[in-house]
């Protein structure tokens, strides 16, 4: 390490300790204020370490990144162990283990088949063994088969049939805005957000938009003539969709950013109430 690196490390460590002491003092009325001060300082240090990547890749960012990988791997392992193995498997296969983990035993005459996924799971771990790694293909095949079988029906129902049927919307009036004739329609024409015209326009956009979007995705025919016009409208609809999704995603990220800045300025520094 260079001399400058030692200086930076020393300064950061000093700021960390100073923050810990000051935070603990400010939380003096709370139980366990030293621990709380330490935890809040750690949290702030990790937040700032990640933000430091905006300047450039650096050891503090690498520290936070590596910690994130290790902690999140263990987090999901523990969640899986307690919720699935202890919560769902053990009550079905072992009375003594159910007693040990204090979960209600669920006896059943055909429960022995629950050992099948355990055996497949153990075979999956064979991937770590120097020989016999090919055995891990069996559980993988089971996972692929289950995913394919379940998704085949699920996507056919929800992503195909339901979406297609939802696209066939009334183009002249609906439940709330009943069609009462051309005269009424034009005499009540309004650009109010809850007007009949706006509602019908939305239905037309949905119907034409889905249809033209699908035309754009149909590559077996050259996009020329009427088909080309439909495809062009499809691109416009898709562009609006991408723009809207982008705006929506950005707002989500910004609200996370606001959350982190609020933590830094309110919970850690106490600059805002």
């Amino acid at each position, binding site marked *: 390490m260079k001399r400058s690196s030692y200086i930076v490390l020393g300064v950061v460590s000093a700021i960390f300790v100073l923050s810990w002491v000051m935070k603990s003092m400010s939380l003096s009325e709370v139980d366990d204020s030293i621990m709380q001060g330490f935890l809040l300082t750690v949290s702030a240090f990790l937040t700032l370490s990640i933000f430091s990547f905006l300047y450039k890749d650096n050891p503090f960012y690498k520290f936070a990144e590596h910690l994130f990988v290790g902690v999140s791997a263990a987090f999901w*392992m523990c969640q899986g162990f307690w919720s699935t193995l202890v919560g769902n498997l053990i009550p079905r296969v072992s009375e003594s283990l159910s007693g040990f983990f204090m979960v209600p035993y669920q006896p059943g005459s055909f429960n022995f088949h629950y050992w099948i996924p355990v055996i497949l799971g153990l075979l999956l771990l064979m991937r770590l063994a120097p020989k016999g790694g090919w055995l891990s293909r069996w559980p993988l095949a089971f996972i692929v088969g289950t995913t394919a079988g379940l998704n085949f029906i699920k996507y056919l129902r929800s992503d195909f049939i339901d979406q297609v049927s939802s696209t066939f919307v009334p183009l002249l009036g609906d439940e709330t805005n009943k069609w009462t004739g051309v005269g009424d329609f034009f005499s009540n024409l309004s650009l109010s957000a809850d007007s009949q015209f706006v509602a019908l326009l939305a239905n037309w956009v949905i119907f034409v938009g889905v249809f033209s979007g699908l035309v754009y995705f149909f590559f077996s025919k050259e996009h020329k003539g009427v088909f080309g016009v439909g495809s062009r409208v499809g691109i416009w609809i898709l562009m609006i969709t991408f723009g809207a999704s982008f705006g929506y995603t950005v707002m989500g990220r910004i609200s996370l950013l606001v959350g982190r800045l609020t933590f830094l300025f309110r919970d850690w520094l106490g600059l805002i109430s």
Partner: protein
Amino acid sequence: MRRFVPLAITFIVGTVLILSVFIPPAQDLNRTFTLYFDIIAVFAFFLGGGNLLRVHINKLRMKKRDWQFSIVTLSGFLIMLAAGLFKIGNPGDIATAVDAEGSMFQTVFNYVLNPLQSTMYSLLAFFVASASYRAFRAKNREATLLLIAAFIILLGRTPFGLMLTGWIPESFSILQVPNLAMWIMNSPNLAGQRAIIIGIGLGVISMSLRLILGVERSYLGDDNA
């Protein structure tokens, strides 16, 4: 044996799950196979953890580049694992939830994992902003549409949008930015999303059939593995 058994397992499991939809007494199979799947997935988490240990211990042993950070990964992993598996600091007995308030597992989650995770994601706000600065140039009609839609949605979700267009009378209220943003989300955006979802649905269905019938075999990997 190395290829036939996995292909047979995929075919049988996939076919049984599809057929079970049409046979009422067999409909419980869905739930049973989903539980099987979840149990195997937990072992996959263990496999991931084991692999993480192997990779970082190797990195430490070989003193590869940035090996010092492997100590951080391993420490974080082992501390969180011990906190979760042994329920260190849990108020109550073994039956108490692993993430009960006051447990070490919950503390590490609240003060280490949660800040790291949300800051990582919030970091994307900066990258998205810089990427959009380069990408959002109204070079043609399509790019202009994308730009306008994004701008209206961004503006419509802030108080500034209402401040800017709140004066527009009720009879033209669809032109108020928050209303317009909502209309874009519920109409053209919905239409585009639906076209994409239908496309994805068809893609998933055809891929599922390819997997079940053994046409798609790439998941089996190399024969020498």
